[in-house]
């Protein structure tokens, strides 16, 4: 058992002393976590989305009407938007494009049409009369058996007059126009916010309140932030890249320089070599995990608490991707080809395995692809182990990772050439 340990120590020392190795294995994932965390954690005073508003509803003196201004205030109160007024006499799309600012961005324009206030008031009055008529009619139907004919006639006359009056009111509806680019990925969210504000405005005008109260609750005992999602994913992704790219490149480099050949002349066996490398990768993965969690705690206050299941998951993930790396290292001869092949496999896997965004965001055919990728199960298992503490979820993913680890190690052992032809 001493030989794998000797290999483990030598390979690990060689890696730790390599600045580029250290950067790509540890520093780069940390930087990525910081960048992702900063972008998606939601805190830190990020700027609101720019919303261009062209208010065409004006008083005769050119000032905006009271109701259209109130609607804009309601939009502003959401603190989601930085509202920019578009002059009434310009093409809003052209003006918005010219005034987007040096960094560009997405153009979103709300156009409040002319007559907004009048239409809203008329529409509101019609709705209110309609509601009153409906209420009185229902009351009449309920009490009619107890009324005499004279009372009935008077009531019915009143109701008829009310209905006639309502019909004389203009069937006014006003419209808001929201213009956005088809490629704008946040457009759907912005549209919902504008619709919600408009609905709230409607309720307020007709004096109604929502009877459905909306309560928010977490399905877990803790509330998780975006970084809690990314952290296990990034750890898993870099366990993969360390196995697939770094180990494959190292193996082919050692092979090219005759280091593996030199070792194979000694009593060292192929399995000793593989075990030593797997141990080294496991240590690297544990170090990466510890540093990432520490950064997550300090900078983003993440919930991650490593436990025995996390360590087992990391060990199995390291074995799985070391095996994968050995398979690739056995298939290719030169370092450049190994690096290219490693990248060609690692990068699509990184983006398709729910590492950086939930798989639900992807079309169903890509979700099917994700289900056969090893990283999906390491990412998922680590997320359950490290964040959600959901043992059943860990075990399901762990079973898949274990099976793949065994398969890759066996295949890697077969493909690792220990004797020349």
């Amino acid at each position: 058992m001493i030989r794998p340990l000797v290999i483990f120590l030598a390979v690990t020392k060689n890696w730790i002393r390599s600045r580029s190795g250290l950067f790509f294995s540890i520093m780069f994932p940390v930087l990525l976590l910081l960048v992702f965390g900063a972008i998606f954690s939601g805190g830190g005073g990020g700027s609101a989305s720019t919303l261009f508003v062209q208010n065409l509803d004006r008083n005769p003196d050119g000032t905006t009407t009271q109701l259209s201004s109130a609607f804009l205030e309601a939009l502003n109160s959401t603190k989601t938007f930085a509202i920019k007024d578009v002059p009434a006499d310009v093409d809003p799309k052209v003006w918005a494009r010219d005034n987007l600012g040096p960094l560009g961005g997405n153009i979103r324009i709300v156009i409040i049409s002319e007559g907004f206030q009048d239409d809203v008031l008329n529409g509101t009055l019609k709705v209110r009369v309609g509601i009153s008529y409906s209420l009185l009619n229902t009351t009449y139907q309920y009490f009619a058996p107890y009324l005499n004919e004279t009372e009935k006639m008077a009531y019915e006359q009143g109701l008829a007059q009310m209905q006639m009056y309502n019909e004389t009111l203009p069937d006014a509806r006003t419209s808001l126009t929201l213009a956005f680019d088809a490629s704008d990925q946040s457009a759907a969210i912005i549209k919902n916010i504008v619709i919600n504000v408009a609905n709230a405005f409607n309720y307020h005008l007709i004096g109604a309140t929502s009877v459905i109260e909306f309560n928010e609750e977490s399905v877990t005992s803790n509330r998780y932030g975006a970084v809690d999602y990314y952290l296990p994913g990034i750890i898993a992704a870099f366990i993969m890249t360390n196995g697939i790219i770094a180990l494959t490149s190292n193996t082919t480099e050692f092979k090219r320089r005759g280091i593996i050949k030199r070792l194979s002349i000694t009593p060292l066996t192929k399995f000793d070599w593989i075990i030593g490398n797997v141990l080294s990768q496991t240590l690297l993965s544990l170090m990466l995990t510890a540093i990432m969690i520490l950064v997550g705690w300090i900078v983003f206050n993440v919930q991650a608490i490593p436990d025995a299941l996390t360590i087992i998951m990391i060990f199995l993930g390291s074995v799985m991707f070391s095996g994968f790396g050995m398979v690739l290292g056995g298939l290719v001869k030169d370092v450049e080809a190994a690096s290219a092949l490693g990248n060609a496999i690692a990068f699509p896997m990184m983006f398709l395995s729910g590492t950086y965004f939930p798989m639900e965001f992807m079309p169903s055919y890509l979700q099917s692809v994700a289900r056969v990728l090893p990283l999906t199960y390491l990412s998922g298992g680590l997320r359950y182990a490290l964040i959600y503490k959901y043992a059943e979820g860990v075990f399901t993913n762990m079973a898949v990772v274990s099976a793949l680890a065994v398969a890759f190690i066996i295949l890697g052992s077969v493909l690792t050439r220990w004797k020349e032809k």
Partner: protein
Amino acid sequence: MVNFIVEVNSLVKQYGSLRAVDNISFELYEGEVFAFLGPNGAGKTTTVEILECLRSLTSGSAKVFGYDVTKGEDVKEIKKRIGVLPQDFSALDKLSVKENIDLIGGMYQKKLDTMEVIRLLDLEDKAKERFENLSGGLKQRVGVAAALVNDPQLIFLDEPTTGLDPKARREVWQVIENLKKLDKTVFLTTHYMEEAQLLADRIAVINKGKIAAIGSPQDLISQYGGLKTLIIRKGGKKLADTLQQKYGSTTLNHNDDVLMKADSVNEMWRALSTLTNLSLDKEIEIQTPTIEDVFLKIVGGRITEEGELK
């Protein structure tokens, strides 16, 4: 009774249509330095790697310390007892000299103290230096140190000085001389004639997978090297004609030097006496044949610095 460390009989290694090693047989005696001398592609490394249990053989047999290189359990025994400096030796760049030797030493149950090996190779000053910072000659010395760490009885040195500058080459030669003093058996492969002649007790000239000649440098020279040459610098045509008439085998080169091939020591003495009688005030040199002459005679070509046959 002579102890054979290596016994090779009718060894063949075939790669598709290419016969890299073609029915060769030879032995290595205990304590000798045996050199495989030949150009690139002659089959030197292939043969050595078969003996190191790194390559399979196609036919024939090869035994090291009496163990068969094709049998699993025998291979384990062979690997314990041999030390190897492979062609283009390399090690882990970020590890120090000592750590790299420790790495190889860690593969053996029985091994020498690393510092003892480092002292033996005169590498004490460089023990903590990273491998990547060493010169070519020092790297080869680390390779030899790694080959010695398990205290092997047989050491394979595959092209140990290829690519080294003359100074580094001489350093490695000194190391090999020291191995001789330690009574190690050394199997050396090289394409440098001077190296083989200087270091080897016996040389096998190998070309196109076949052993063309085998023996001690002296035996090979006396068998294939041809005659000793008496050179009279700037002797001129008249002297050349005189010697030609008396002894034959005399030529004049483009520098006006007279070159006379002497059949025997007696003939050499007689020619010298003739020159003394002529009271010539010329520079005289006696040139003995070398392994290069042997190689030229046997193979019909010379080996370039890069190891190619021309």
